[in-house]
């Protein structure tokens, strides 16, 4: 035992143990996220339970556990929110008389009210109405959904036109407000033209709204009636069906297709049902854009500051104090940065911008409210210390002989910096940058007060002039997790989406970091100095 201690074994063991604890925790976290997130889109079998009290319950089994009396019970997602009120129910195992898996059961993903589970009873459309025979019903439903397509297209076109009109109206109104702000005469030619334009736009708007109403009526003529397990009927408009499938009839191939389809939806579609269903595209877009904008600020600022501190600043007390301050910045709670961003960027700079450039829109703020620009500036501030420290360290680790060699050949300090020191320091700087990026991508708290929203009506980049709308509010995966996990009215139903979003956020951070790591390794190989 004494020998064991003398050889320093306990210390080795302790270090090994610490490492294994860290690895275990990381693996555990990833396991929980992956295990719960990866299967969300896989179609589950629908089970029909006949209970001892005569009730029939239909749904997906989501959980099995033992209750306080050691009796197993099942959690069933029963959907049909308009009938049941709740999406989930618990059934005790002893209450179940029999289980069956009827093949005719449908799962309908709807625009509203969540999933519907049941059997198809009637299909109504202007062309055909079918009320019996599963085979005919299914084909009639398919045909009706096909015939619906042109109407759905019209609906989309109308809403797009309404969007464009709204924007045009807003522009006219802003101009008008601008003229009126300058106390221009109401009979001025410019104002009269604008008022005319406004009336014209409003007429167009009314026509479009009428068209929309008609379209809605036409769409309403297509509907299907479904029956729940206990015989209740529910009418579903075909236009509200997002997806419908018969999980008990699906083969492996069909299931894979379904999974892929849902995955594509996740990446390209907008969220539905207060974010618990549908895609994550705006949040993915917002997250990536936020990190890129943040990098644009924090990278140059951090690198330049680091260069000054290491290369040019006269070493002394001041530099030491600055260095300590910079290092401490990294330890400030992120919410404090958020508050600073709110006070300095939004109310200070944003408010001033509004005063100078958009006074006619006040009191409606343009830049004086949260937006992706302010959020990314705040994050930039938050991550800049990491980049500064990394730059300083990287420059400091270059042997002095390289500087001497360059200066002795008649290079200026600036030439030495740009031609040798910066390239040689780049792998180290990149490392800091990777850390900064990973931190920024995972921050939520400062965003909540600088411009992130639950549901953004439009993206920060779109086809409307001037294309980049940096004052717009945005969605973010991290906030999305918080929002659907803790703020959703239907937390249980949102749970799968929490895991999916988490998994996605981890994957995005991982892939952005991988790109940076790849670049760093290339630089490292290129600028390594031989260590003889």
């Amino acid at each position, binding site marked *: 035992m004494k020998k064991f201690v003398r050889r320093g074994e306990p210390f080795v063991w302790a270090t090994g143990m610490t490492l294994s604890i860290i690895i275990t925790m990381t693996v555990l976290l990833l396991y929980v996220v992956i295990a719960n997130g990866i299967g969300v889109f896989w179609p589950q079998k629908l089970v029909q339970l006949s209970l001892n009290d005569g009730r029939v319950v239909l749904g997906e089994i989501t959980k099995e556990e033992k209750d306080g009396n050691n009796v197993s019970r099942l959690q069933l997602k029963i959907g049909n929110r308009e009938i049941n009120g709740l999406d989930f129910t618990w059934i005790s195992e002893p209450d179940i008389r029999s289980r069956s898996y009827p093949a005719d059961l449908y799962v309908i993903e709807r625009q509203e009210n969540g999933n519907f589970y049941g059997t198809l009873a009637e299909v109504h459309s202007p062309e055909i109405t079918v009320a019996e025979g599963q085979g005919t019903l299914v084909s009639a439903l398919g045909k009706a959904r096909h015939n619906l397509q042109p109407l759905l297209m019209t609906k989309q076109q109308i809403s797009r036109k309404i969007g464009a009109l709204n924007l045009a109206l807003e522009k006219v109104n802003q101009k008008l407000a601008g003229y009126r702000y300058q106390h221009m005469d109401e009979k001025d030619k410019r104002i009269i033209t604008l008022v005319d334009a406004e009336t014209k736009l409003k007429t167009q708007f009314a026509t479009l709204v009428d068209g929309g109403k008609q379209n809605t009526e036409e769409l309403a003529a297509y509907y299907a009636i479904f029956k729940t397990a206990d015989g209740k009927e529910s009418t579903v408009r075909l236009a509200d069906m997002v997806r419908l499938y018969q999980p008990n009839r699906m083969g492996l191939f069909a299931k894979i297709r379904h999974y892929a389809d849902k995955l594509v939806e996740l990446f390209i579609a907008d969220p539905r049902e207060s974010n618990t269903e549908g895609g994550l595209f705006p949040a993915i877009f917002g997250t990536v854009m936020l990190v890129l904008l943040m990098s644009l600020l924090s990278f140059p600022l951090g690198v330049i500051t680091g260069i000054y501190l290491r290369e040019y600043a006269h070493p002394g007390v001041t530099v030491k104090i600055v260095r300590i301050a910079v290092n401490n910045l990294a330890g400030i709670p992120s919410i404090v940065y958020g508050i600073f961003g709110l006070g300095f960027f939004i109310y200070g700079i944003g408010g001033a911008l509004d005063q100078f450039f958009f006074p006619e829109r006040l009191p409606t703020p343009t830049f004086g409210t949260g937006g992706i620009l302010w959020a990314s500036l705040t994050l930039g501030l938050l991550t800049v210390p990491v980049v500064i420290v990394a730059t300083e360290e990287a420059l400091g680790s270059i042997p002095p*002989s*390289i500087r001497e*060699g360059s*200066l*002795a*050949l008649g*290079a200026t300090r600036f030439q030495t910096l740009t031609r040798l020191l910066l390239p040689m320091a780049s792998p180290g700087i990149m490392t800091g940058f990777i850390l900064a990026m990973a931190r920024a991508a995972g921050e939520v708290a400062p965003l909540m007060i600088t411009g992130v929203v639950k549901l953004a009506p439009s993206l920060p980049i779109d086809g409307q002039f001037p294309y980049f709308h940096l004052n717009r509010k945005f969605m973010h995966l991290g906030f999305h997790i918080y929002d659907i996990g803790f703020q959703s009215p239907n937390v249980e139903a949102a749970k799968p989406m929490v895991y999916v979003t988490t998994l996605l956020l981890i994957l995005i951070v991982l892939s952005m970091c991988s790109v940076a790591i790849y670049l760093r390794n290339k630089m490292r190989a290129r600028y390594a100095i*031989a260590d003889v």
Partner: protein
Amino acid sequence: MTAQATPIMQITDAIVEVKDLHLYYGDSEALRGITMSIPRKKVTALIGPSGCGKSTFIRCFNRMNDLIESIRISGEITIDDQDIYDNSVDVIELRRRVGMVFQKWNPFPKSIYENVIYGLRIAGVRDKNLLDETVEKSLKRAALWDEMKDRLHESAMGMSGGQMQRLCIARAIAVSPEIILMDEPCSALDPRSTSRIEELIRELQGDYTIIIVTHNMQQAARVSDFTAYFYIGELVEFGLTKRVFTSPVRKETEDYITGRFG
């Protein structure tokens, strides 16, 4: 020239004149009034025990000491009658005229080609033919051309220590300096590489003024025309190498070169 009885020899065709040079690191005096001339296009070796100020001394010639803030210098160094510590002197220009090879080879993490033309690149030379020519000429002079002509665009980091040091010499030659300072260029090399560098120095003399600091007395005897012996910041003896090694005037010199001291 014949052996002279004076410990500090007078040089007729000198390129560098040093007059009463004092150098202080903060409060301590590292060079204590050195006056000597460096002969043009000859190899001058500076020998002496560690810490005697040899390296500090040659770093005065290309003003590398400017980088150290605590250093103060008084006295005068002229190169071709121009005071290099005069305010009008362009340090960049001076360093192009006075090249330097360091104790530890320090090739840049670039290709062999880029290493050689680094001095030209920063001087703004863009002419591809001139650059190619310079690379070939400099590498040939540094006796590297045959080994490296097929690997010009590979990283210099793949070379051996001796090759790297010769590359550093080629890099210094490429800007056509008048003077090349060598600060113990062989101290980190094995004997074979050392003898190659020594051969190279012999070949370069006659075209360049070379000032070499060395700890190795045999090396000084082999490669130099003139030798200066330094001791604690003072120039003790300076003369033709043959004379200094065979019949030193000062007792300290004799003790040092015979190995009784140092």
